[in-house]
């Protein structure tokens, strides 16, 4: 088995992003029936979402700057160049929106959601937007990964021909 630090950083980026989305979903579900007893859980989940997204930002950013250029060359030479031109270009900027929303979430969960319907609507909206944009970013990551795979498969099949 040969797992490089490059692989670990990339997998950590995806895993932290999913964990951040799950924490935001936790906030959303708890906020649906907000009570005074659930306030601490909601604030904890919001903090988990923010910390996970910050860590995903750092891991993903380091991987993107240090290692992605080689993958980009492969993708652009392969059969799925749109995996970079559309999906990576969108993902690398859409992620900033998810990150900003994740940093906003802990501010919003400090409100008394069980007595303030407007604050509850705000928290549901922010948490929901994190889940939607976060899953879109995750999906784009899968397409980028497949762009590399089909490029390598085509190169390998060409090399295997007599």
């Amino acid at each position, binding site marked *: 088995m040969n797992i490089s630090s490059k692989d670990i950083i990339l997998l950590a980026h995806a895993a932290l992003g999913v964990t951040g989305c799950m924490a935001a979903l936790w906030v959303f579900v708890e906020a649906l029936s907000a009570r005074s007893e659930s306030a601490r859980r909601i604030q904890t989940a919001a903090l988990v979402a923010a910390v996970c997204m910050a860590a995903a930002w750092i891991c993903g950013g380091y991987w993107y700057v240090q290692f992605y250029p080689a993958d980009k060359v492969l993708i652009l030479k392969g059969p799925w160049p749109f995996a970079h031109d559309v999906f990576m270009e969108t993902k*690398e900027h859409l992620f*900033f929106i998810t990150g900003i929303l994740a940093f906003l979430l802990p501010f919003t969960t400090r409100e008394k959601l069980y007595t303030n319907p*407007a604050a509850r609507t705000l928290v549901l909206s922010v948490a929901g937007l994190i889940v939607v944009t976060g899953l879109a970013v995750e999906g784009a990551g899968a397409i980028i990964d497949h762009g590399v795979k089909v490029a390598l498969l085509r190169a390998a099949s060409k090399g295997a021909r007599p």
Partner: protein
Amino acid sequence: MNTAIRSGSPVLAPATSGFVLSAAITVVFNTALAWVKDAYPPLSDFMGRIGGHHWTTHGVADLLVFAGLGFVFTKTRAAEKIAPNRLTTVLIGAVAIAGLGLALWYVFV
């Protein structure tokens, strides 16, 4: 009907409303900066020289705008003039426009 939600004053704390408005502006700024970088490569090159990579500088710029405007709006209480539900609508609209704006730009431009 959810009996856990009791009626209360629909007011947000100054930091909450301030940072919500800041987030709405930041996500639109993020998309606008992505468009300008893509359309005007010298800006992307300049940002690359500042932070080592244009993406790094872009992220730091977003964080500075979010934190800076958030503190300003909290101090001045400027965002409190906007009704909480309207502020939520503004944020949802900003994220929808910014997200779709990014996707459509890279699909068609």
